[in-house]
């Protein structure tokens, strides 16, 4: 039965070959543009997300609290109105207290790796040049488990920080700016006034010029000494097996350790919102292309319905039901949608392959960049699904009209 209706629908379309081809072209172009643009936008989005997730900690414990600690007297009388005068804050070394115990505790939790980090500002001096850098004190053997930095090493090794406590690993951009080479000795001064000499034992290149020019890694003990924070760290970096679980994990960890714990989603909230808005705009634009294509389909099927009133009447007289007639015209939309999909996906793949060859250099980046495209089945399914939906919706109204044709009215109308 369905075969018969599809065959009849195909004959109708073939009888209006030119209009059918035009509406088919609309779907082909719609699908291909939808596919290419959404794959490009989604690809770049995934690339950004990948960088966010991959190159930054999934969860970070900071030496801070979301809500300030209440004074003991306020804790003691929670219902009372307490006003304290002349409170003198206790001077203390900032940092996460008892971090080894917290780390042990975290490492017992399944699905995560944790590493301590002490970050601070420092001034690197070499050959009369000074540059401010973010100094990261790490335990290399632990840090490489939570970071991708090892992947970006171009000279030397991060692991050497374990054996060479006076070593420093810097970005190749900083090295270029300061004319540094491997094994050069640099002076590093902290904001507390302490100065140490370090030997360059490694260079990394992440492709992000601000990171490559502004970050340096040293052994944790040396950083604690330089920044005058003995036995303290100010960050615990956590990597999860499932990055998407970061939001929930961060909340769970914060409940345990009480220090402010930030997931990558929270840290990138603004960016995530911007990406969502960008995605909505993108789908609205590419969807509009298919809406235009749908009008083409509507036009051709409406014309067929108007022209085939007599044939519809005779089919009804033969014994075809109203819903058969409706299905026959819906099948026309499905045929245009399906064929349009096949050619549209083929053209879309061509466009995507072409876009992947486009390369350019972003301002501030030392690398050549390529467009990242998302070739996932989801993109194809989405383009195909939207096109089919548009085609079926466009054919639905004329199909309904065809089903409502009263054969007697048409037959009375004469020959």
């Amino acid at each position, binding site marked *: 039965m369905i075969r018969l209706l599809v065959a009849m629908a195909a004959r109708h379309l073939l009888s209006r070959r030119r209009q059918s081809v035009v509406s088919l072209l609309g779907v082909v172009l719609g699908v291909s543009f939808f596919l290419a643009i959404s794959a490009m936008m989604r690809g770049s989005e995934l690339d950004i997300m990948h960088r966010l997730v991959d190159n930054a900690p999934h969860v970070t414990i900071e030496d801070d609290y979301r809500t300030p600690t209440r004074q003991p007297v306020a804790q003691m009388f929670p219902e009372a109105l307490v006003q304290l005068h002349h409170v003198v804050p206790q001077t203390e070394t900032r940092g996460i207290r008892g971090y080894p115990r917290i780390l042990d505790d975290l490492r017992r939790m399944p699905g995560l790796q944790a590493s301590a980090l002490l970050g601070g500002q420092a001034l690197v001096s070499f050959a009369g040049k000074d540059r401010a850098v973010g100094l990261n004190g790490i335990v290399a053997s632990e840090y490489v488990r939570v970071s991708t930095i090892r992947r970006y090493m171009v000279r030397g090794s991060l692991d050497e920080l374990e054996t060479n406590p006076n070593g420093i690993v810097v970005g190749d951009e900083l090295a270029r700016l300061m004319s540094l080479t491997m094994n050069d000795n640099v002076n590093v001064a902290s904001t507390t006034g302490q100065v140490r000499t370090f030997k360059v034992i490694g260079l990394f290149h992440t492709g992000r010029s601000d990171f490559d020019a502004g970050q340096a890694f040293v052994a944790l003990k040396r950083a604690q000494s330089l920044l005058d924070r003995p036995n303290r760290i100010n960050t615990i970096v956590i990597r999860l097996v499932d990055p998407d679980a970061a939001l929930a994990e961060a909340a769970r960890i914060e409940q345990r350790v009480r220090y402010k714990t930030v997931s990558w989603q929270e840290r990138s909230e603004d960016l995530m919102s911007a990406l969502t808005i960008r995605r909505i705009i993108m789908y609205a634009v590419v969807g509009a292309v298919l809406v235009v294509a749908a009008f083409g389909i509507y036009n051709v099927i409406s014309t067929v319905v108007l022209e085939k009133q007599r044939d519809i009447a005779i*089919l*009804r*007289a033969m014994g075809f*039901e109203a819903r*058969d007639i409706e299905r026959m015209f819906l099948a026309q939309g499905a045929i245009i949608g399906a064929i349009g999909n096949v050619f549209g996906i083929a053209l879309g793949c061509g466009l995507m392959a072409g876009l992947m060859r486009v390369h350019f250099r972003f301002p501030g980046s030392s690398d050549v960049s390529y467009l990242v495209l998302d070739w996932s089945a989801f993109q194809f399914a989405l383009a195909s699904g939207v096109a089919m939906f548009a085609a079926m919706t466009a054919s639905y109204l004329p199909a309904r009209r065809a089903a409502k044709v009263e054969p*007697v009215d048409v037959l009375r109308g004469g020959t």
Partner: protein
Amino acid sequence: MPGAIRLDHVTRRLDADVPVTLVDDASLRIDAGECVAIVGPSGSGKSSLLYLMGLLDQPTRGHIVLRGEDTAGYGDAERAEARLRAIGFVFQSHFLLPEFTARENVMLPMRRLGRLGEDAIHARAGELLAALDLKTQCDKWPRQLSGGQSQRVAIARALANDPMLILADEPTGNLDSVASRTVQQIILTLAHEQGRAVAVVTHDTSFAAQADRRIRIVDGRIQP
């Protein structure tokens, strides 16, 4: 015997600003093997009566009994099913679907019914066309056929599912005299030799004279 079709006091009225009565209190019965000519002036309600008999239209009042079964409670699907299995239409114009060949036009009702396999449908369409002297025209498009040939293809299509009732609305109205005589003979054969009930609306008095019975209708009323 219930008769192939029976109309009991059937009225069809169109509700408009000025209501129009197309068929007024019509009662008739057509038996298998009988050819009934429905005659009357233009606009008298002949075709409307035929559409009611063919379940294309529904009566405002009265009952249509097909093969002994009252069709009053039929929905769209049941009326379509009854048309598919039991009723064959032939119109003044052949109304062949232009996108299909002669054979494919004849195959359509059989494909819709789905009682036979594709090969059997193909073969039966060929047999029906051959029986109407159209063996060499099977694979031609409607535009390649003459008026008489097209009308014979339309008759073959009406016979596709072996209906017991044939309803013909001015089947010779657009044909020349030779083709008209051929079609008349075929229609009479359907009743007299094949035992089908046939109702023919016609203005052709010679054709009406050959029918077993003539029903005259004026202003929607069957004349005594």
